């Protein structure tokens, strides 16, 4: 607790000191991060910020990038779009950052895009929604797989098992609803029929009413797109109602706390996840494996169990650093062009191949289908 206080005081002191600095050629590179550090999506922003801090400290210890140190300015959006806009304006106008990382959530990211485009500053988002980069926005990139890829992965797995009738149950948050939209959009393409479509409030304590309806439908499988504690409630209540249909969750629940909360009911749940959670189970020949293990070891030695969200921040920082190195300075337009030229960069989420038409640069193969088995993740073939 105390370290939090000192951190904030030293951050404040640093800010003050930063403000007093006269402009010089050796100015630090300023990266602005706006993340959900509080509120229902705090579990996203927290590992993201920790990752950024850890790796920026590391880079600075090694002499910085292009001979300049990196300065991190962070701002908590609380998952509130309005606050996200305020954060971005503060980072751009007061902290004068050279590059933005963030939007832990799609909602936060979408909210700031007008301000970012107007300020002409590169933004690397850490959120899943496909609408962030589709249609392509000139200044906006992102590192996580899209929810469309997650849906594609789930549907492919369903087809493999010969299941075609599914019931959806989603929350009322942005993540849930944009996932739900993708589920509807992709269904015909995979020959999947949606026979039930339920929603719940993300704060709800009980989902049995919705699940009872699903139980009475002729669904062959249930897909729950959501995050926070709600998916754990869904998983538990499904078990309570004696529902034996295969249950698919989204990549929104890839964290140890989901397994803890859902308890025994989580057994057998399948979901698409980044390779990070099953890093050890990957074949040694996989070029991603050393990157994943290195990140995981570093994070866990400092903060405890790793989560994929921190991995997105790692990818974002690495893409940015590589682009700065190639550009040789932090001119915003040059930086943007270099980010767009990212190619063959092996990150936590997969291998990034960005193009002017593709501002995420990942394909669905970056997702792995995993199953919860004996309280941990098992890579499915």
């Amino acid at each position, binding site marked *: 607790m105390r370290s*939090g*206080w000192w*951190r*904030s005081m030293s*951050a*404040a002191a640093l*800010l003050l000191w930063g403000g007093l600095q006269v402009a010089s050629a050796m100015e630090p590179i300023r990266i602005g991060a706006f993340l959900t*550090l*509080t509120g229902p999506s705090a579990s996203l922003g927290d590992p993201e910020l920790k990752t950024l801090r850890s790796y920026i400290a590391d880079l600075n210890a090694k002499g910085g990038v292009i001979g300049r140190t990196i300065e991190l300015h962070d*701002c*908590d959006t609380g*998952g*509130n*779009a*309005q606050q996200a*806009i*305020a954060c971005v*304006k*503060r980072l751009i*106008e*007061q902290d004068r950052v050279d590059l933005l990382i963030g939007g832990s959530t*799609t*909602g936060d990211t*979408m*909210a*700031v*895009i*007008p*301000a970012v485009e*107007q300020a002409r500053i590169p933004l690397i988002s850490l959120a899943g*929604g496909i*609408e962030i980069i589709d249609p392509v926005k000139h200044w906006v990139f992102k590192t996580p797989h899209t929810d469309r890829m997650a849906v594609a992965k789930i549907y492919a797995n369903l087809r493999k098992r010969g299941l075609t009738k599914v019931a959806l149950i989603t929350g*009322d*948050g*942005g993540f*849930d*609803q*944009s996932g739900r*939209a993708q589920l509807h959009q992709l269904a015909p393409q995979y020959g999947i029929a949606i026979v039930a479509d339920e*929603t719940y409030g993300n704060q709800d304590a009980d989902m049995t009413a919705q699940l009872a309806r699903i139980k009475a439908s002729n669904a062959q499988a249930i897909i729950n797109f959501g995050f926070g504690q709600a998916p754990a409630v869904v998983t538990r209540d499904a078990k309570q109602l004696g529902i034996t249909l295969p249950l698919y969750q989204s990549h929104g629940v890839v964290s140890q706390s989901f397994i803890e909360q859902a308890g025994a009911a989580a057994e057998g749940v399948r979901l698409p996840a980044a390779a990070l959670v099953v890093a050890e189970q990957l074949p040694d020949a996989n070029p991603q494996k050393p990157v994943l293990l290195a990140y995981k070891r570093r994070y866990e030695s400092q903060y405890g169990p790793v989560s994929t969200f921190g991995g997105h921040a790692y990818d974002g920082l690495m893409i940015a650093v590589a682009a700065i190195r190639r550009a040789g300075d932090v001119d915003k337009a040059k930086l943007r062009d270099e980010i767009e030229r990212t190619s063959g960069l092996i990150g936590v989420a997969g291998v990034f191949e960005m193009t002017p038409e593709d501002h995420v640069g990942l394909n669905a193969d970056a997702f792995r289908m995993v199953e919860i088995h004996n309280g941990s993740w098992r890579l499915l073939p």
Partner: protein
Amino acid sequence: MRLAGFYGFAALVVLLPLLFPNDYFVIVVGASAGLHAILAVGLNLLVGYAGQISLGHAAFFGMGAYASAILTTRFGWPGLLALLAGLLVAGLLAWLLARPILRLRGHYLAMATLGFGVIVHVILVQATDWTGGPDGLSGIPPLNLFGWTVEGDLQWYGVIAAAMLLAIWLSLNLVDSQIGRALRAVHGSEFAAQMMGIDTARAKTQVFVVSALFAAFAGSLFAHQQAFVSPDSFNLAVSVELVTMVVLGGIASTFGAACGAIALTLLRQGLVVFEDYEMLIHGALLMAVMIFLPQGLFVGLGQALRTGLRRCGLGRRRDRHRSLSTAGVQDPGSPP
């Protein structure tokens, strides 16, 4: 003379950006504070003067914002026309709702307005085809005012500051007229007000509509300024915060409401540096202000200041009236 405070405040609002033209706190946070001030001043007419609580005011704010957002993005309406439509929708709904809702008193009224706010919020989240759902609507075009396109934070500061000053001016005028006295009479004693020939149900309806109009107006500006709207900005927490602003600043005082709005907005931004301690400090400050200045920051501090001046032998002109008051009921402003 009557508006001396107003002109002083206006001068400050104009001077600040001239002194700090690129300061984030003045320009961006200031604009946000200004929007909140419009909302608080409007809500204060209802809560402070007419004595009717509303815990659902964010709904009207949201209606203005979404009317502008939907009409400009989906139907290509010009911003000003959309703004008027937003006013119309919010005003009409407030008018329809006012009679049944304002029959209720105290906490029942609080509950009913709260429920109304929750229902509107649920609709904003669920009616995805119209509202864009929880992710909201983006790409709202900049506001065009008779050929001038408002762009950039400094210009927005100007527009919002002007709108806020207009709101404060309108509110000051209203309060200091027979309309305002009738509202305060409704608050003071509904029986007596009726016996003076005031149709209290009608007066309450009117003030409900007017304060909804203030909120919808702020909402339209907000939508254009942010170029983005999402349901989060109009949920219960926002409604509660608006009431907090009114009470924190000083109930039944136009400047009190505006000051409360500005103070709370600055506070929320200022506390960000405390990270995890933000909530703890925010809560403690709210409690402290209300315990030590139950009449609110603006009104309470004003009274303390006057008392202080009197002790120093200043402010004699007001003294004559004040000394008489000691004979009667205790000064409601003094903390227990």
